[in-house]
């Protein structure tokens, strides 16, 4: 009995120390990544290739999800707003929720599970099959050649994907609100335009998605780089990427929102 309690406590302590350890090595990893980013800009084709894999290939899932989220917002918003006779505000509701919150956050969550997991698995496998070691032997820095292009590709793609998500969502809200339910089209757009401020809403949304892009790709590349070089290790790293990206995105969102709301007062 006492022994099993001690074992549990020991495991808990080990996990705690291990996670602190990871925070430290992730910071060092991020610093190394930034300091070796020069190659990515000198040979921008490397980054473009990765943008194709993480950005272009996430386009369809992001666009379709955005459309659906916008349509659901339209339906749900109409249901509630009609009680107060304010159905014309549906455009404002859809646009503000998408541009401020749902666009950056949901797009980042989808990005983490679609592109982040792929990055981790790819780098983890490269490590397991000793490709990274081989590169090192040929005096090619894996950090500059493999990790940094993926990081910058993610940082470039994320704000664009979030913008596409929001735009598609607004279009979905328009489809449901105006085409399906029959809210006046002029009121739909004018209420939206009166409420959405380019600097406080649209720009802040872009800043959020930019920060999420950094967080997700750093986590994804680090987990891949840090994965134990076995099949099990790679699968565990992929899972960790999705889980810790999701938690990081939501926690960062809270912090950023608190800052942004305070700044706009």
């Amino acid at each position, binding site marked *: 009995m006492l022994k099993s309690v001690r074992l549990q406590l020991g495991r808990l302590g080990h996990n705690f120390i291990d996670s602190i350890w990871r925070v430290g090595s992730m910071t060092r990893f991020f610093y190394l990544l930034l300091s070796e980013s020069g190659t990515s800009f000198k040979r921008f*084709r490397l980054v*473009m*290739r990765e*943008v*194709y894999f993480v*950005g*272009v290939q996430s*386009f369809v899932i992001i666009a379709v999800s955005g459309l659906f989220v916008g349509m659901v917002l339209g339906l749900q918003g109409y249901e509630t707003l009609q009680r107060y006779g304010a159905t014309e505000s549906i455009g404002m509701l859809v*646009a503000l929720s998408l*541009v401020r919150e749902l666009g950056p956050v949901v797009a980042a969550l989808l990005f983490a599970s679609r592109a982040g997991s792929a990055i981790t698995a790819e780098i983890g496998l490269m490590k397991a099959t000793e490709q990274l070691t081989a590169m090192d032997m040929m005096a090619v820095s894996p950090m500059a050649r493999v990790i940094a292009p993926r990081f910058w590709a993610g940082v*470039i*793609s994320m*704000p*664009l*994907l979030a*913008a*596409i998500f*929001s*735009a*598609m969502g*607004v279009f979905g809200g328009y489809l449901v609100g105006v085409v399906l339910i029959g809210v006046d089209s002029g009121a739909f*757009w004018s209420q*939206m*335009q*009166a409420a*959405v*401020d*380019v600097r406080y*809403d*649209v720009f802040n*949304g*872009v800043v959020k998605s930019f920060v999420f892009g950094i967080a997700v790709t750093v986590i994804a590349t680090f987990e891949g780089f840090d994965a134990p070089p076995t099949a099990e290790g790679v699968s565990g790293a992929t899972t960790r990427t999705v889980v810790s990206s999701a938690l990081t995105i939501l926690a960062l969102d809270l912090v950023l929102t608190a800052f942004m709301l305070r700044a706009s007062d």
Partner: protein
Amino acid sequence: MERTTIDLWFGAFVSAGFAALLILALKVGNIGAEGQRDSYKVEARFDNIGGLKVRAPAKAAGVVVGRVERIRLDSATYQAVVTIKIDRGYQFTTDTIASILTSGLLGEVYIGLDAGGDAKMLADGGNLTKTQSAVILEKLIGQFLVDKAASGGGK
């Protein structure tokens, strides 16, 4: 420099992303309509601004003609000094009355501008001298109760 398919995809993706941003800025956020236009600033002093906020609209006859740019307290007179940015296309007389109003019971607080009959027009940096402060509901109710008590006491 030879072209690759990746270039095409990259170009298409980046253009789609920027197109989406442009839609958000123009169609959803309506950037060009205000802020970019030529405008002039006038100052108005109020005893109490109530719930007026920066970026609140200034309306004349219900039409939005400008926005509140800055609100500060004059520490000499203890009055609120509100800087209003008015569209260059709208001219107001120097005896324009600025009042702080609320649209509806719970609506937004805005500045209502009622033009007077003066021949001179406000210029940039001008002052609105005739102002009407916000109605503070609590004070109103308090006054009503006092009046009621006073008239009730006479009976």
